[in-house]
């Protein structure tokens, strides 16, 4: 079909008094929501649940940073502190980050982006959400019973033999959530293979779809290994068999291999969808094609595949063989290359663009900067000799927070702002959106950059109390966390406000390309009223035209 030469900006709806019914109008009862098969409603269900877990995990982080503001362990007991950082890790990894972008934005957008009516298995999708909620509730029950103090990494034999906390219950919760992940991944893969609109070849797919496809492959192949690992830990804990405990003939390193075989690809589950989001936002707000589309797609596949081969870089000082360490280090350097390509390509997309700095773009630019720092510090810990000093210190903590929070969470917020009008039919207040973005960026750096310095100076991880010489850096970090928390709380308010404001969004407030923007905001239940047009080139943004304004179209009601 003809290419979409220009994406006209349709910011505000045509102002008619009663907008056409959307998926949000398709039943208002709680039951209609809890028994829905609509991928868009399921995405909203996920959005609400992960937000709840985000703030619970964030509460744990707040208490941690409060405690660490002073060297003495004076806010909570040793055991409570250990349970806090465990809760923070378990909740943030499994109940927030892993589902976040795929289950909210992947669910909402993948069918829209490929011109389909829904995912391949809509009922399986709903089951995924129920499994997620069930697993999450089990984890919360474990917390309520007294929590678990093993760290989110559950290293044996501490977790199997020595911890006096609710390890088995927590791991059952994780096991259940794992199946939610597997089913979501399965659904996405089959959807992308079988439900693309006619004419939508693989190399016309948005990078967001590529990213979710690759993420789904990882979900499907890595999560089962986590399932088995949790099963074996629970079995050892309940039956006292020596799978991992040397006192009974087991091997603690076997646990680490099994655990990290999943948990390293898991970080790519957390970052690839974020990269997909950034690849949608940057071309739109730079009004330019993404630089090197094919390389970007291949880089996604490269990250996903090589990412399965590097798990041993978490074990350089564990006692594993020298040969294994050498191989894992080399592969870890190699996996950095496709990520580097992506950063360079995003930056090059800005060159000779026509850049606007709406909130989504601020988040995307923040992602690129912070992911670059996080990725480069990953090279430090991939270097064998350096990792000997840096592993298990705050350097690693800073490294992974730069990627997961500076990267994935920022991308999540970028996605939230970018597709908020599409999903809700409302416009968020742009000024507040930008303020929050800046607050989060600044607060994040204030919180986590000092942690690189702490690690370089030898401050170990998971320490409740610490020697006085680390006080200043910890205090700086805790102060930064206040700013970061403020930044995270702001959107709660202005997004809620936007839901009640009268100002409605048009189909395409940002003038973006992509099939999802061809339908109304919010979309009808069946996604499209008219057959969508498959563009010739997925990111064919027009030359810069007249600047779009927020002013409503003629005849429309002002907000």
């Amino acid at each position, binding site marked *: 079909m003809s290419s979409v030469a220009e994406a006209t900006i349709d910011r505000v709806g045509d102002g008619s008094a009663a907008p056409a019914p959307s998926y949000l109008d398709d039943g208002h009862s709680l039951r209609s929501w809890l028994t829905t098969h609509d991928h868009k409603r399921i995405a909203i269900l996920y959005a609400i649940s992960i937000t709840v877990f985000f703030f619970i995990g964030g509460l744990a982080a707040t208490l941690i940073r409060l405690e660490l503001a002073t060297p003495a362990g004076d806010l909570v007991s040793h055991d409570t502190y250990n349970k806090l950082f465990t809760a923070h890790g378990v909740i943030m990894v499994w109940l927030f980050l892993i589902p976040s972008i795929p289950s909210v934005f992947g669910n909402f957008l993948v069918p829209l982006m490929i011109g389909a009516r829904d995912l391949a298995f809509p009922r399986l999708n709903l089951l995924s959400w129920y499994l997620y909620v069930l697993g999450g509730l089990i984890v919360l029950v474990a917390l309520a019973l007294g929590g678990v103090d093993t760290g989110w990494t559950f290293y044996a034999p501490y977790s199997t033999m020595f911890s006096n906390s609710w390890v088995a219950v927590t791991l059952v919760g994780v096991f259940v959530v794992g199946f939610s992940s597997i089913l979501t991944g399965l659904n996405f893969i089959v959807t992308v293979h079988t439900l693309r609109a006619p004419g939508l070849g693989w190399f016309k797919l948005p990078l967001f779809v590529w990213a979710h496809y690759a993420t789904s492959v990882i979900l499907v192949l890595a999560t089962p290994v986590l399932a088995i690992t949790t099963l074996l830990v629970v079995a050892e804990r309940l039956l006292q068999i020596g799978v991992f405990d040397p006192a009974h003939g087991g091997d603690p390193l076997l646990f680490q291999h099994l655990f990290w075989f999943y948990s390293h690809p898991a970080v790519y589950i957390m970052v690839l969808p974020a990269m997909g989001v950034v690849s949608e936002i940057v071309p739109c707000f730079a009004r330019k094609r993404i630089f090197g589309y094919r390389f970007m797609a291949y880089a996604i596949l490269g990250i996903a595949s090589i990412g399965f081969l590097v798990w041993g870089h978490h074990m350089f000082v564990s006692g594993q063989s020298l040969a294994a360490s050498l191989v894992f280090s080399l592969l870890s*350097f190699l996996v950095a290359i496709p990520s580097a390509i992506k950063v360079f390509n995003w930056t090059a997309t800005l060159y000779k*663009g*026509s850049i606007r700095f709406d909130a989504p773009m601020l988040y995307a630019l923040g992602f*690129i900067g912070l992911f670059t720092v996080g990725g480069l510090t990953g090279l430090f810990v991939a270097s064998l000799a350096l990792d000997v000093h840096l592993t298990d210190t705050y350097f690693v903590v800073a490294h992974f927070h730069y990627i997961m929070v500076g990267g994935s969470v920022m991308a999540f917020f970028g996605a939230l702002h970018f597709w908020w009008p599409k999903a809700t039919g409302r416009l968020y207040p742009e000024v507040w959106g930008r303020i929050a973005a800046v607050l989060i960026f600044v607060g994040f750096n204030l919180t986590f950059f000092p942690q690189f310095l702490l690690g370089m100076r*030898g401050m170990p991880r998971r320490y409740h109390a610490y020697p006085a010489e680390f006080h200043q850096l910890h205090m700086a970090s805790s102060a930064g966390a206040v700013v970061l928390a403020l930044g995270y709380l702001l959107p709660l308010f202005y997004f809620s406000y936007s839901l009640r404001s009268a100002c409605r969004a048009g189909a395409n407030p940002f003038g973006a390309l992509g099939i999802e923007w061809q339908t109304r905001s919010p979309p009808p239940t069946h996604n499209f009223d008219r057959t969508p047009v498959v563009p010739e080139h997925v990111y064919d943004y027009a030359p810069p035209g007249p600047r779009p304004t927020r002013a409503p179209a003629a005849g429309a009601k002002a907000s």
Partner: protein
Amino acid sequence: MSGIVDLASDAGLSWLGGASSVAPRYDLLFAAMVLLCGTVALGVLVAIVAFSIRYRAGAGRGDAAAGRRTRAIEIAWTVTPLVIFIGLFVWAAHDFVALYRPPADALPVYVVAKQWMWKLQHRNGRREINELHVPLGQPVRLLMTSQDAIHSFFVPAFRLKQDVVPGRYTGLWFTATKLGEFRLFCAEYCGTEHSQMLGRIVVLPPAEYARWLGSGSEQPSLAQYGFARFRALGCSGCHDPASTVHAPSLEGLLGRTVHLQDGRTLVADENYVRDSILVPGKDVVAGFAPVMPSFAGQVSEEDIQALVAYLRSTGAPAPGDPQGARR
């Protein structure tokens, strides 16, 4: 002595104040990485800021047709990082491998970690808790195991760390190059008082170290103690050359190549000795019946370390013996 140790010297904390023979190499590599990564990060950030300003909407400098022919530059910025990364890998790997090659004259110290303290024993039998005295300029080799969970022996001033794992020996060697006291941390989460599992390394001039070593209460050397256990536990009943029971000779065992019943061959190291004491059926020597009973439950970790020290004293270790403590 438990609790947080106050140090007079800040030498162990400044990241330029390394105190071991490997610290200068580490600091050089680290500085090089900071320079390289800092340059790249700065480059990317400057580019983003510069493009954001120069190509902002309304500046009229945009050209949507730019950046269409990408292959050459893509290949360039794929291959260039690849080459640099391989270089970095080789550099770091080279330094790392050296950590696995303790000098033959390294002083052995035996370490047992437990929740939540470090127990150390010198060759002459002198014991320490949460402290390690070492001489300046002399290689020291730690042979470590844990009694319970996984711990990790971390001395930031030395730029060294090694997990201490139950059920096996892991090793760490260093040569202290500065006098003073340096922090020892446990770096692998091990339970309630993980953050209290602190200690210090005390580096003394060699003469003072020798005085310190000899000044402890009179007790047998570790090897002597090991010999006493060897007799008391009945090992010599079978392994003595005069015994009527056909059992492998243990003289100079460490470092020797051993042929096993199932056709495998291995070099006897501390882990092999430990396994043979606790799980004798695991690696049976070729030509011998698997009749050795297990001593699991009858020997403590310190006992096993003492027996190892005794065996080591019965024969010269093989030159360039790879640090046998790692599998």
